Protein backbone atom coordinates (compact mmCIF):
# COMPACT_ATOMS: atom_id res chain seq x y z
CA UNK A 1 0.00 0.00 0.00
CA UNK A 2 1.37 3.43 -0.89
CA UNK A 3 1.41 6.25 1.60
CA UNK A 4 -1.74 8.24 1.12
CA UNK A 5 -1.31 11.94 1.70
CA UNK A 6 -4.33 12.10 4.00
CA UNK A 7 -2.60 9.94 6.61
CA UNK A 8 -1.00 12.00 9.34
CA UNK A 9 1.51 9.29 10.17
CA UNK A 10 2.71 6.54 7.86
CA UNK A 11 4.85 3.76 9.29
CA UNK A 12 6.08 1.29 6.70
CA UNK A 13 8.36 -1.75 7.01
CA UNK A 14 9.80 -0.29 10.19
CA UNK A 15 12.49 -2.59 11.56
CA UNK A 16 14.95 -2.35 14.41
CA UNK A 17 17.31 -5.06 15.40
CA UNK A 18 19.31 -5.16 18.64
CA UNK A 19 22.27 -7.48 18.07
CA UNK A 20 20.23 -9.58 15.65
CA UNK A 21 17.09 -9.61 17.79
CA UNK A 22 14.31 -7.89 15.85
CA UNK A 23 12.33 -5.99 18.46
CA UNK A 24 10.22 -4.45 15.69
CA UNK A 25 9.97 -6.44 12.48
CA UNK A 26 8.71 -4.91 9.17
CA UNK A 27 5.94 -3.09 10.97
CA UNK A 28 3.44 -1.02 8.98
CA UNK A 29 0.51 1.01 10.19
CA UNK A 30 -1.21 4.28 9.34
CA UNK A 31 -2.72 6.92 11.59
CA UNK A 32 -5.35 9.32 10.32
CA UNK A 33 -5.88 12.87 11.53
CA UNK A 34 -7.93 13.00 14.76
CA UNK A 35 -7.66 9.28 15.24
CA UNK A 36 -7.03 7.70 18.61
CA UNK A 37 -4.98 4.60 18.05
CA UNK A 38 -4.37 2.23 20.93
CA UNK A 39 -1.49 -0.23 20.77
CA UNK A 40 -1.85 -3.31 22.94
CA UNK A 41 0.12 -6.49 23.16
CA UNK A 42 1.85 -8.80 25.62
CA UNK A 43 5.11 -7.85 27.35
CA UNK A 44 8.02 -7.60 24.97
CA UNK A 45 5.81 -7.15 21.92
CA UNK A 46 7.75 -3.98 20.99
CA UNK A 47 5.11 -1.39 21.90
CA UNK A 48 7.40 1.10 23.64
CA UNK A 49 10.10 0.52 21.02
CA UNK A 50 7.68 1.63 18.28
CA UNK A 51 7.13 4.94 20.09
CA UNK A 52 10.89 5.28 20.64
CA UNK A 53 11.46 4.81 16.91
CA UNK A 54 8.85 7.38 15.90
CA UNK A 55 10.16 10.07 18.26
CA UNK A 56 13.81 9.41 17.41
CA UNK A 57 14.95 8.00 20.74
CA UNK A 58 15.98 4.75 19.07
CA UNK A 59 17.46 4.69 15.57
CA UNK A 60 15.67 2.36 13.17
CA UNK A 61 17.53 -0.31 11.20
CA UNK A 62 15.21 0.08 8.21
CA UNK A 63 11.83 1.23 6.93
CA UNK A 64 10.24 4.63 6.95
CA UNK A 65 8.22 6.87 9.25
CA UNK A 66 6.49 9.75 7.53
CA UNK A 67 4.71 12.50 9.44
CA UNK A 68 2.90 15.11 7.33
CA UNK A 69 5.10 13.97 4.41
CA UNK A 70 8.32 14.54 6.36
CA UNK A 71 10.66 11.61 6.92
CA UNK A 72 11.16 11.46 10.68
CA UNK A 73 13.89 8.82 10.71
CA UNK A 74 16.44 11.32 9.42
CA UNK A 75 15.56 14.01 11.96
CA UNK A 76 16.98 14.83 15.41
CA UNK A 77 14.70 14.40 18.46
CA UNK A 78 14.14 18.13 18.94
CA UNK A 79 13.35 18.59 15.24
CA UNK A 80 10.74 15.84 15.47
CA UNK A 81 9.19 17.67 18.43
CA UNK A 82 9.07 20.90 16.41
CA UNK A 83 7.45 19.00 13.52
CA UNK A 84 4.56 18.34 15.91
CA UNK A 85 5.12 15.00 17.67
CA UNK A 86 4.88 14.89 21.48
CA UNK A 87 5.91 11.93 23.60
CA UNK A 88 5.04 10.97 27.15
CA UNK A 89 7.27 8.43 28.84
CA UNK A 90 6.05 5.40 30.75
CA UNK A 91 7.37 6.52 34.12
CA UNK A 92 6.53 10.12 34.99
CA UNK A 93 9.42 12.22 33.72
CA UNK A 94 9.32 15.71 35.21
CA UNK A 95 11.98 18.13 36.51
CA UNK A 96 11.89 17.45 40.24
CA UNK A 97 13.96 20.47 41.31
CA UNK A 98 11.70 22.94 39.51
CA UNK A 99 8.20 24.10 40.36
CA UNK A 100 5.11 22.98 38.46
CA UNK A 101 5.00 26.39 36.81
CA UNK A 102 8.63 26.17 35.70
CA UNK A 103 8.11 22.63 34.41
CA UNK A 104 5.29 23.84 32.18
CA UNK A 105 7.21 26.97 31.19
CA UNK A 106 10.14 24.96 29.83
CA UNK A 107 7.77 23.08 27.54
CA UNK A 108 6.18 26.30 26.28
CA UNK A 109 6.99 26.37 22.56
CA UNK A 110 9.10 29.55 22.49
CA UNK A 111 12.76 30.38 23.13
CA UNK A 112 14.16 26.95 22.32
CA UNK A 113 17.58 28.14 21.11
CA UNK A 114 20.38 29.03 23.53
CA UNK A 115 19.96 32.77 23.05
CA UNK A 116 16.19 32.50 22.78
CA UNK A 117 16.26 30.87 26.23
CA UNK A 118 18.51 33.63 27.63
CA UNK A 119 16.19 36.33 26.30
CA UNK A 120 12.94 34.52 27.13
CA UNK A 121 10.49 36.75 29.00
CA UNK A 122 7.69 35.44 31.16
CA UNK A 123 4.98 37.65 29.68
CA UNK A 124 1.22 37.63 30.26
CA UNK A 125 0.62 35.36 27.29
CA UNK A 126 2.95 32.70 28.71
CA UNK A 127 1.45 32.99 32.19
CA UNK A 128 -2.14 32.76 31.01
CA UNK A 129 -1.34 29.77 28.81
CA UNK A 130 0.36 27.99 31.71
CA UNK A 131 -2.61 28.78 33.99
CA UNK A 132 -4.95 27.36 31.37
CA UNK A 133 -2.97 24.14 30.98
CA UNK A 134 -2.53 23.76 34.74
CA UNK A 135 -6.28 23.92 35.14
CA UNK A 136 -6.75 21.27 32.45
CA UNK A 137 -4.42 18.88 34.27
CA UNK A 138 -5.84 19.64 37.76
CA UNK A 139 -2.70 21.37 39.04
CA UNK A 140 -3.85 25.00 39.17
CA UNK A 141 -3.40 25.17 42.96
CA UNK A 142 0.06 23.63 42.91
CA UNK A 143 1.86 25.93 40.45
CA UNK A 144 4.41 27.03 43.06
CA UNK A 145 4.96 23.53 44.40
CA UNK A 146 8.24 21.79 43.65
CA UNK A 147 7.56 18.87 41.30
CA UNK A 148 9.43 16.44 43.59
CA UNK A 149 6.62 16.76 46.16
CA UNK A 150 3.82 15.79 43.77
CA UNK A 151 2.15 12.38 44.01
CA UNK A 152 2.76 9.81 41.29
CA UNK A 153 -0.55 10.60 39.61
CA UNK A 154 0.05 14.35 39.76
CA UNK A 155 3.45 13.87 38.12
CA UNK A 156 1.76 11.95 35.29
CA UNK A 157 -0.69 14.82 34.87
CA UNK A 158 2.11 17.34 34.91
CA UNK A 159 3.91 15.51 32.14
CA UNK A 160 0.70 15.35 30.11
CA UNK A 161 0.34 19.10 30.71
CA UNK A 162 3.92 19.66 29.51
CA UNK A 163 2.97 17.93 26.27
CA UNK A 164 -0.30 19.81 25.88
CA UNK A 165 1.43 23.16 26.12
CA UNK A 166 3.44 22.19 23.03
CA UNK A 167 0.11 21.58 21.26
CA UNK A 168 1.41 18.62 19.20
CA UNK A 169 -0.54 17.27 16.24
CA UNK A 170 0.44 13.74 17.20
CA UNK A 171 0.52 12.84 20.87
CA UNK A 172 2.10 9.56 21.96
CA UNK A 173 1.30 8.31 25.46
CA UNK A 174 3.00 5.32 27.03
CA UNK A 175 0.71 3.79 29.69
CA UNK A 176 -0.73 7.07 30.96
CA UNK A 177 -2.83 5.49 33.76
CA UNK A 178 -0.32 2.93 35.00
CA UNK A 179 0.25 3.05 38.74
CA UNK A 180 -2.66 5.36 39.45
CA UNK A 181 -5.32 5.03 42.13
CA UNK A 182 -8.89 4.31 41.03
CA UNK A 183 -9.95 7.93 41.56
CA UNK A 184 -6.91 9.27 39.67
CA UNK A 185 -7.52 6.79 36.90
CA UNK A 186 -11.06 8.03 36.41
CA UNK A 187 -9.94 11.64 36.40
CA UNK A 188 -7.17 10.84 33.91
CA UNK A 189 -9.60 9.08 31.58
CA UNK A 190 -11.71 12.25 31.56
CA UNK A 191 -8.62 14.36 30.94
CA UNK A 192 -7.47 12.19 28.04
CA UNK A 193 -10.91 12.15 26.50
CA UNK A 194 -10.74 15.93 26.41
CA UNK A 195 -7.16 16.25 25.14
CA UNK A 196 -7.45 13.70 22.32
CA UNK A 197 -10.26 15.61 20.64
CA UNK A 198 -8.40 17.87 18.21
CA UNK A 199 -5.36 15.76 17.50
CA UNK A 200 -4.13 12.31 16.64
CA UNK A 201 -3.06 10.15 19.54
CA UNK A 202 -1.17 6.89 19.88
CA UNK A 203 -1.67 5.28 23.29
CA UNK A 204 -0.10 2.19 24.77
CA UNK A 205 -2.40 0.81 27.44
CA UNK A 206 -3.28 -2.43 29.20
CA UNK A 207 -6.51 -1.37 30.88
CA UNK A 208 -9.14 -2.84 28.53
CA UNK A 209 -12.00 -0.81 29.94
CA UNK A 210 -9.98 2.32 29.31
CA UNK A 211 -9.04 1.20 25.79
CA UNK A 212 -12.67 0.56 24.91
CA UNK A 213 -13.55 4.08 26.04
CA UNK A 214 -11.05 5.99 23.96
CA UNK A 215 -9.88 3.89 21.00
CA UNK A 216 -10.85 4.67 17.42
CA UNK A 217 -8.85 1.68 16.33
CA UNK A 218 -6.70 -0.88 18.09
CA UNK A 219 -3.44 -2.41 16.87
CA UNK A 220 -2.31 -5.62 18.54
CA UNK A 221 1.43 -6.17 18.45
CA UNK A 222 3.10 -9.51 18.99
CA UNK A 223 6.84 -10.17 18.68
CA UNK A 224 7.38 -6.94 16.80
CA UNK A 225 4.68 -7.56 14.21
CA UNK A 226 1.07 -6.54 13.78
CA UNK A 227 -1.08 -9.42 14.89
CA UNK A 228 -4.44 -7.81 14.36
CA UNK A 229 -5.88 -4.39 13.68
CA UNK A 230 -9.36 -2.88 13.73
CA UNK A 231 -12.08 -1.89 16.14
CA UNK A 232 -11.95 -3.10 19.73
CA UNK A 233 -14.73 -5.60 19.07
CA UNK A 234 -12.92 -6.87 15.99
CA UNK A 235 -9.61 -7.56 17.73
CA UNK A 236 -11.27 -9.05 20.78
CA UNK A 237 -13.01 -11.58 18.54
CA UNK A 238 -9.86 -12.34 16.54
CA UNK A 239 -8.79 -15.96 17.29
CA UNK A 240 -5.09 -15.07 16.84
CA UNK A 241 -5.36 -12.45 19.60
CA UNK A 242 -7.16 -14.85 21.92
CA UNK A 243 -4.46 -17.42 21.25
CA UNK A 244 -1.64 -15.01 22.15
CA UNK A 245 -3.31 -13.60 25.24
CA UNK A 246 -4.72 -16.81 26.68
CA UNK A 247 -1.92 -19.10 25.62
CA UNK A 248 -2.20 -22.71 24.52
Amino acid at each position, binding site marked *: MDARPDFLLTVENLTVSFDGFKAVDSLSFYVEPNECRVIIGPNGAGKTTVLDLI*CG*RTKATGGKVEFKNQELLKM*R*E*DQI*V*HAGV*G*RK*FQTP*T*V*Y*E*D*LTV*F*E*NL*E*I*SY*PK*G*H*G*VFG*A*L*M*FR*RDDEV*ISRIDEIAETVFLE*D*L*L*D*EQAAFLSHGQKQWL*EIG*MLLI*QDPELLMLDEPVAGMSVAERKQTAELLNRVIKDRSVIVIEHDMKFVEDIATRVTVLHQGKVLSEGSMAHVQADPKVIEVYLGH
Partner: protein
Amino acid sequence: MLLSKNRFFSTTDLIGFGLLALLIFVVLPIGLDTFRLNLFGKYLTYAFVAIGLVLCWGAGGILSLGQGVFFGLGGYCMAMFLKLEASSPEATKIQSTPGIPDFMDWNQITEIPIWWQPFHSLTFSLIAVILVPVIFAFIIGVAMFRRRVGGVYFAIITQAIAAILTILIIGQQGYTGGVNGITDLRTLKGWDIRTDDAKVLLYFVNGGLLFACLFLAQLIRRSKLGRILIAMRNQEDRVRFSGYDVANFKIFVFCAGAAFAAIGGAMFTLQVGFMSPSFVGIVPSIEMVILCAVGGRLSIIGAVYGALLVNLAKTTFSELFPELWLLGLGGLFIAVVLIFPNGLAGLYSDYIEPRITAIFKRKFPESKDPGKFDPAKTAAEAAE
Protein backbone atom coordinates in the same frame (compact mmCIF):
# COMPACT_ATOMS: atom_id res chain seq x y z
CA MET B 1 2.59 36.47 42.56
CA LEU B 2 4.55 34.41 40.09
CA LEU B 3 6.20 37.44 38.58
CA SER B 4 7.56 38.45 41.95
CA LYS B 5 9.38 35.11 42.10
CA ASN B 6 11.07 35.88 38.83
CA ARG B 7 12.81 39.01 40.06
CA PHE B 8 16.46 39.26 39.14
CA PHE B 9 17.59 39.18 42.76
CA SER B 10 15.66 37.50 45.52
CA THR B 11 16.07 39.01 48.99
CA THR B 12 18.51 36.25 49.89
CA ASP B 13 20.62 36.94 46.80
CA LEU B 14 20.60 40.65 47.53
CA ILE B 15 21.84 40.13 51.10
CA GLY B 16 24.46 37.67 49.81
CA PHE B 17 25.79 40.03 47.13
CA GLY B 18 25.79 42.96 49.58
CA LEU B 19 27.70 41.10 52.30
CA LEU B 20 30.24 39.76 49.82
CA ALA B 21 30.81 43.24 48.35
CA LEU B 22 31.29 44.59 51.87
CA LEU B 23 33.84 41.87 52.62
CA ILE B 24 35.81 42.21 49.40
CA PHE B 25 35.78 45.97 48.93
CA VAL B 26 35.77 47.23 52.53
CA VAL B 27 36.63 44.70 55.24
CA LEU B 28 39.58 42.94 53.59
CA PRO B 29 41.33 46.08 52.22
CA ILE B 30 41.02 47.83 55.60
CA GLY B 31 41.91 44.83 57.72
CA LEU B 32 44.87 43.41 55.79
CA ASP B 33 48.35 44.61 54.88
CA THR B 34 49.33 44.67 51.21
CA PHE B 35 51.02 41.28 51.31
CA ARG B 36 47.96 39.54 52.78
CA LEU B 37 45.60 41.50 50.54
CA ASN B 38 47.53 40.30 47.49
CA LEU B 39 47.25 36.77 48.85
CA PHE B 40 43.47 37.12 49.14
CA GLY B 41 43.41 38.55 45.62
CA LYS B 42 45.12 35.34 44.50
CA TYR B 43 42.51 33.23 46.34
CA LEU B 44 39.74 35.19 44.67
CA THR B 45 41.06 34.35 41.20
CA TYR B 46 40.00 30.76 41.96
CA ALA B 47 36.51 32.05 42.72
CA PHE B 48 36.10 32.81 39.00
CA VAL B 49 36.65 29.12 38.26
CA ALA B 50 34.26 28.13 41.05
CA ILE B 51 31.48 30.35 39.65
CA GLY B 52 31.88 28.65 36.27
CA LEU B 53 31.71 25.27 37.98
CA VAL B 54 28.49 26.24 39.76
CA LEU B 55 26.92 26.83 36.34
CA CYS B 56 28.37 23.71 34.67
CA TRP B 57 28.31 21.23 37.50
CA GLY B 58 25.86 22.58 40.08
CA ALA B 59 23.17 23.67 37.65
CA GLY B 60 23.84 21.62 34.52
CA GLY B 61 25.28 18.49 36.10
CA ILE B 62 28.36 18.59 33.85
CA LEU B 63 31.37 17.77 36.02
CA SER B 64 34.58 19.06 34.48
CA LEU B 65 37.80 17.96 36.13
CA GLY B 66 39.83 20.07 33.73
CA GLN B 67 38.98 23.67 34.58
CA GLY B 68 42.69 24.25 35.23
CA VAL B 69 43.14 24.07 31.45
CA PHE B 70 41.07 27.21 30.93
CA PHE B 71 42.49 28.95 34.00
CA GLY B 72 45.95 28.17 32.64
CA LEU B 73 45.24 29.21 29.04
CA GLY B 74 43.88 32.56 30.23
CA GLY B 75 46.87 32.98 32.52
CA TYR B 76 49.38 32.04 29.83
CA CYS B 77 47.88 34.48 27.31
CA MET B 78 48.33 37.26 29.85
CA ALA B 79 51.81 36.05 30.80
CA MET B 80 52.96 35.98 27.16
CA PHE B 81 52.14 39.66 26.76
CA LEU B 82 53.85 40.61 30.01
CA LYS B 83 56.88 38.48 29.19
CA LEU B 84 57.36 40.10 25.80
CA GLU B 85 57.19 43.51 27.42
CA ALA B 86 59.72 42.40 30.05
CA SER B 87 62.09 41.15 27.32
CA SER B 88 63.13 44.42 25.74
CA PRO B 89 66.65 44.36 24.20
CA GLU B 90 67.95 46.66 26.98
CA ALA B 91 66.58 44.49 29.77
CA THR B 92 67.96 41.31 28.23
CA LYS B 93 71.27 42.54 26.87
CA ILE B 94 73.28 39.92 28.78
CA GLN B 95 71.56 37.13 26.79
CA SER B 96 73.20 35.62 23.73
CA THR B 97 70.15 36.82 21.76
CA PRO B 98 68.86 40.00 23.41
CA GLY B 99 65.18 40.95 22.99
CA ILE B 100 63.64 37.51 23.38
CA PRO B 101 62.20 35.94 26.57
CA ASP B 102 64.93 34.51 28.81
CA PHE B 103 63.72 30.89 28.68
CA MET B 104 63.86 30.95 24.87
CA ASP B 105 67.45 32.12 25.04
CA TRP B 106 68.32 29.31 27.48
CA ASN B 107 66.86 26.82 25.00
CA GLN B 108 68.96 28.05 22.07
CA ILE B 109 66.02 29.70 20.34
CA THR B 110 67.11 32.82 18.53
CA GLU B 111 63.91 34.48 17.46
CA ILE B 112 60.40 34.90 18.82
CA PRO B 113 58.14 32.22 17.27
CA ILE B 114 55.43 33.41 14.92
CA TRP B 115 52.55 32.49 17.25
CA TRP B 116 54.09 34.62 19.99
CA GLN B 117 54.20 37.71 17.75
CA PRO B 118 50.56 38.88 18.16
CA PHE B 119 51.06 38.97 21.94
CA HIS B 120 53.06 42.19 21.53
CA SER B 121 49.64 43.84 21.38
CA LEU B 122 47.77 44.32 24.68
CA THR B 123 44.39 44.46 22.92
CA PHE B 124 45.07 41.17 21.15
CA SER B 125 46.28 39.58 24.37
CA LEU B 126 43.20 40.65 26.35
CA ILE B 127 40.92 39.26 23.64
CA ALA B 128 42.99 36.07 23.50
CA VAL B 129 42.67 35.65 27.29
CA ILE B 130 38.96 35.00 26.77
CA LEU B 131 38.82 33.72 23.21
CA VAL B 132 41.55 31.06 23.25
CA PRO B 133 40.04 29.12 26.19
CA VAL B 134 36.48 29.61 24.90
CA ILE B 135 37.35 28.29 21.43
CA PHE B 136 39.16 25.36 23.03
CA ALA B 137 36.13 24.68 25.26
CA PHE B 138 33.88 24.96 22.22
CA ILE B 139 35.87 22.33 20.34
CA ILE B 140 35.83 19.97 23.34
CA GLY B 141 32.13 20.68 23.86
CA VAL B 142 31.17 19.98 20.26
CA ALA B 143 33.26 16.81 20.17
CA MET B 144 31.85 15.48 23.45
CA PHE B 145 28.28 16.73 23.79
CA ARG B 146 27.28 16.18 20.15
CA ARG B 147 28.28 12.54 20.63
CA ARG B 148 26.37 12.53 23.92
CA VAL B 149 29.40 11.83 26.05
CA GLY B 150 28.44 12.79 29.58
CA GLY B 151 28.79 12.03 33.27
CA VAL B 152 31.87 10.18 34.43
CA TYR B 153 33.22 9.75 30.89
CA PHE B 154 33.21 13.49 30.34
CA ALA B 155 34.93 14.07 33.68
CA ILE B 156 37.66 11.56 32.81
CA ILE B 157 38.23 13.08 29.37
CA THR B 158 38.55 16.62 30.78
CA GLN B 159 41.05 15.26 33.27
CA ALA B 160 43.02 13.64 30.45
CA ILE B 161 43.02 16.95 28.57
CA ALA B 162 44.44 18.68 31.67
CA ALA B 163 47.19 16.06 31.83
CA ILE B 164 47.94 16.36 28.11
CA LEU B 165 48.20 20.15 28.23
CA THR B 166 50.55 20.00 31.22
CA ILE B 167 52.81 17.51 29.44
CA LEU B 168 52.73 19.64 26.30
CA ILE B 169 53.70 22.81 28.18
CA ILE B 170 56.50 21.07 30.07
CA GLY B 171 57.77 19.33 26.93
CA GLN B 172 57.90 22.48 24.80
CA GLN B 173 60.29 24.24 27.15
CA GLY B 174 61.69 26.64 24.58
CA TYR B 175 58.27 28.00 23.68
CA THR B 176 56.44 27.86 27.00
CA GLY B 177 59.06 28.13 29.72
CA GLY B 178 58.57 24.45 30.59
CA VAL B 179 58.04 23.37 34.17
CA ASN B 180 59.13 26.73 35.57
CA GLY B 181 56.47 28.52 33.57
CA ILE B 182 56.70 32.12 32.45
CA THR B 183 58.35 34.02 35.26
CA ASP B 184 59.86 37.41 36.04
CA LEU B 185 56.96 39.51 34.73
CA ARG B 186 57.47 43.19 35.42
CA THR B 187 55.37 45.84 33.74
CA LEU B 188 52.05 46.31 31.99
CA LYS B 189 52.40 49.07 29.40
CA GLY B 190 55.19 50.56 31.47
CA TRP B 191 53.27 50.31 34.76
CA ASP B 192 55.20 48.24 37.30
CA ILE B 193 52.87 45.51 38.59
CA ARG B 194 55.23 44.51 41.40
CA THR B 195 54.80 47.62 43.57
CA ASP B 196 52.46 47.75 46.57
CA ASP B 197 50.25 50.39 44.93
CA ALA B 198 49.85 48.23 41.84
CA LYS B 199 48.97 45.22 43.95
CA VAL B 200 46.23 47.12 45.77
CA LEU B 201 44.84 48.44 42.49
CA LEU B 202 44.95 44.99 40.88
CA TYR B 203 43.11 43.59 43.90
CA PHE B 204 40.26 46.03 43.29
CA VAL B 205 40.24 45.36 39.53
CA ASN B 206 40.06 41.66 40.39
CA GLY B 207 37.16 42.28 42.77
CA GLY B 208 35.33 44.35 40.14
CA LEU B 209 35.75 41.64 37.50
CA LEU B 210 34.61 39.02 40.00
CA PHE B 211 31.40 40.96 40.57
CA ALA B 212 30.93 41.37 36.81
CA CYS B 213 31.18 37.58 36.47
CA LEU B 214 28.84 37.02 39.43
CA PHE B 215 26.38 39.34 37.75
CA LEU B 216 26.62 37.47 34.43
CA ALA B 217 26.25 34.13 36.21
CA GLN B 218 23.18 35.46 38.01
CA LEU B 219 21.79 36.60 34.66
CA ILE B 220 22.20 33.08 33.27
CA ARG B 221 20.75 31.45 36.37
CA ARG B 222 17.70 33.68 36.49
CA SER B 223 16.94 33.27 32.78
CA LYS B 224 15.01 30.35 31.35
CA LEU B 225 18.38 28.97 30.28
CA GLY B 226 19.28 28.55 33.96
CA ARG B 227 16.13 26.55 34.56
CA ILE B 228 16.80 24.44 31.46
CA LEU B 229 20.22 23.57 32.91
CA ILE B 230 18.55 22.28 36.07
CA ALA B 231 15.99 20.45 33.95
CA MET B 232 18.83 18.78 32.01
CA ARG B 233 20.40 17.66 35.28
CA ASN B 234 17.05 16.15 36.36
CA GLN B 235 15.77 14.60 33.11
CA GLU B 236 17.90 15.11 30.05
CA ASP B 237 15.57 13.09 27.82
CA ARG B 238 12.52 15.10 28.80
CA VAL B 239 14.33 18.32 27.81
CA ARG B 240 15.28 16.77 24.48
CA PHE B 241 11.70 15.66 23.85
CA SER B 242 10.43 19.11 24.77
CA GLY B 243 12.14 20.38 21.64
CA TYR B 244 15.58 21.48 22.87
CA ASP B 245 18.90 20.58 21.32
CA VAL B 246 20.53 19.61 24.61
CA ALA B 247 24.10 19.62 23.26
CA ASN B 248 23.94 23.35 22.40
CA PHE B 249 23.03 24.24 25.98
CA LYS B 250 25.85 22.12 27.36
CA ILE B 251 28.35 23.66 24.96
CA PHE B 252 27.19 27.14 25.93
CA VAL B 253 27.52 26.61 29.67
CA PHE B 254 30.87 24.83 29.29
CA CYS B 255 32.19 27.78 27.26
CA ALA B 256 30.83 30.24 29.84
CA GLY B 257 32.63 28.31 32.59
CA ALA B 258 35.83 28.38 30.52
CA ALA B 259 35.56 32.15 30.02
CA PHE B 260 35.15 32.78 33.75
CA ALA B 261 38.10 30.50 34.56
CA ALA B 262 40.22 32.29 31.95
CA ILE B 263 39.57 35.71 33.48
CA GLY B 264 40.61 34.25 36.83
CA GLY B 265 43.78 32.87 35.27
CA ALA B 266 44.73 36.22 33.72
CA MET B 267 44.17 38.02 37.03
CA PHE B 268 46.26 35.34 38.76
CA THR B 269 49.17 36.07 36.43
CA LEU B 270 48.88 39.81 37.01
CA GLN B 271 48.70 39.56 40.79
CA VAL B 272 51.16 36.74 41.41
CA GLY B 273 53.61 37.71 38.67
CA PHE B 274 54.04 34.35 36.96
CA MET B 275 52.19 31.43 35.37
CA SER B 276 53.29 27.81 35.40
CA PRO B 277 51.98 24.33 34.50
CA SER B 278 51.37 23.63 38.18
CA PHE B 279 48.11 25.60 37.84
CA VAL B 280 46.96 23.68 34.76
CA GLY B 281 47.17 19.99 35.57
CA ILE B 282 45.03 17.38 37.27
CA VAL B 283 45.68 18.29 40.89
CA PRO B 284 44.82 22.02 40.62
CA SER B 285 41.78 21.14 38.50
CA ILE B 286 40.50 18.81 41.20
CA GLU B 287 41.22 21.42 43.87
CA MET B 288 39.01 23.82 41.93
CA VAL B 289 36.15 21.31 42.05
CA ILE B 290 36.71 20.81 45.78
CA LEU B 291 36.51 24.49 46.56
CA CYS B 292 33.33 24.73 44.54
CA ALA B 293 31.90 21.76 46.46
CA VAL B 294 32.92 23.16 49.84
CA GLY B 295 31.36 26.52 49.07
CA GLY B 296 28.24 24.91 47.69
CA ARG B 297 27.88 23.82 44.12
CA LEU B 298 24.40 25.29 43.81
CA SER B 299 25.34 28.79 44.95
CA ILE B 300 27.54 31.28 43.12
CA ILE B 301 28.07 33.29 46.31
CA GLY B 302 28.89 30.12 48.22
CA ALA B 303 31.49 29.24 45.61
CA VAL B 304 33.34 32.51 46.26
CA TYR B 305 33.46 31.81 50.01
CA GLY B 306 34.58 28.27 49.23
CA ALA B 307 37.46 29.60 47.14
CA LEU B 308 38.49 31.99 49.93
CA LEU B 309 38.25 29.54 52.81
CA VAL B 310 39.81 26.49 51.17
CA ASN B 311 42.75 28.52 49.89
CA LEU B 312 43.16 30.26 53.22
CA ALA B 313 43.16 26.86 54.93
CA LYS B 314 45.61 25.61 52.33
CA THR B 315 48.06 28.43 53.06
CA THR B 316 47.72 28.10 56.81
CA PHE B 317 47.84 24.33 57.12
CA SER B 318 50.44 23.73 54.46
CA GLU B 319 52.74 26.03 56.45
CA LEU B 320 51.99 24.22 59.73
CA PHE B 321 51.70 20.61 58.56
CA PRO B 322 53.15 20.31 55.06
CA GLU B 323 52.77 16.48 54.92
CA LEU B 324 49.22 16.37 56.20
CA TRP B 325 47.71 19.09 54.07
CA LEU B 326 46.75 16.95 51.07
CA LEU B 327 45.14 14.36 53.34
CA GLY B 328 43.22 17.16 55.01
CA LEU B 329 41.99 18.38 51.63
CA GLY B 330 40.82 14.88 50.72
CA GLY B 331 39.10 14.55 54.10
CA LEU B 332 37.36 17.86 53.54
CA PHE B 333 36.02 16.67 50.19
CA ILE B 334 34.73 13.41 51.71
CA ALA B 335 33.08 15.38 54.52
CA VAL B 336 31.34 17.63 52.01
CA VAL B 337 30.02 14.70 50.01
CA LEU B 338 28.86 12.70 53.04
CA ILE B 339 27.75 15.29 55.57
CA PHE B 340 26.88 18.53 53.81
CA PRO B 341 26.40 17.86 50.08
CA ASN B 342 25.38 21.43 49.33
CA GLY B 343 28.44 22.87 51.00
CA LEU B 344 28.61 26.02 53.10
CA ALA B 345 25.77 27.59 51.15
CA GLY B 346 23.62 24.55 51.98
CA LEU B 347 24.45 24.88 55.69
CA TYR B 348 23.52 28.56 55.50
CA SER B 349 20.17 27.99 53.80
CA ASP B 350 19.32 25.03 56.08
CA TYR B 351 20.27 26.43 59.47
CA ILE B 352 21.00 30.15 59.44
CA GLU B 353 18.53 31.55 56.92
CA PRO B 354 15.39 30.15 58.62
CA ARG B 355 16.45 31.85 61.86
CA ILE B 356 17.02 35.18 60.15
CA THR B 357 13.64 34.87 58.44
CA ALA B 358 12.05 34.04 61.80
CA ILE B 359 13.52 37.19 63.36
CA PHE B 360 12.25 39.30 60.46
CA LYS B 361 8.82 37.68 60.70
CA ARG B 362 8.58 38.56 64.38
CA LYS B 363 9.48 42.16 63.69
CA PHE B 364 7.27 42.64 60.61
CA PRO B 365 4.49 40.05 60.92
CA GLU B 366 2.32 41.77 58.29
CA SER B 367 4.92 41.62 55.48
CA LYS B 368 4.36 37.94 54.76
CA ASP B 369 5.36 36.95 51.25
CA PRO B 370 2.13 35.93 49.48
CA GLY B 371 4.07 33.89 46.93
CA LYS B 372 5.36 31.53 49.60
CA PHE B 373 3.87 28.09 49.72
CA ASP B 374 1.49 27.85 52.65
CA PRO B 375 1.07 24.26 53.85
CA ALA B 376 -2.03 25.01 55.92
CA LYS B 377 -3.82 26.59 52.98
CA THR B 378 -2.95 23.79 50.57
CA ALA B 379 -4.00 21.15 53.07
CA ALA B 380 -7.33 22.89 53.51
CA GLU B 381 -7.85 22.98 49.77
CA ALA B 382 -6.92 19.34 49.39
CA ALA B 383 -9.48 18.40 52.00
CA GLU B 384 -12.31 20.02 50.05
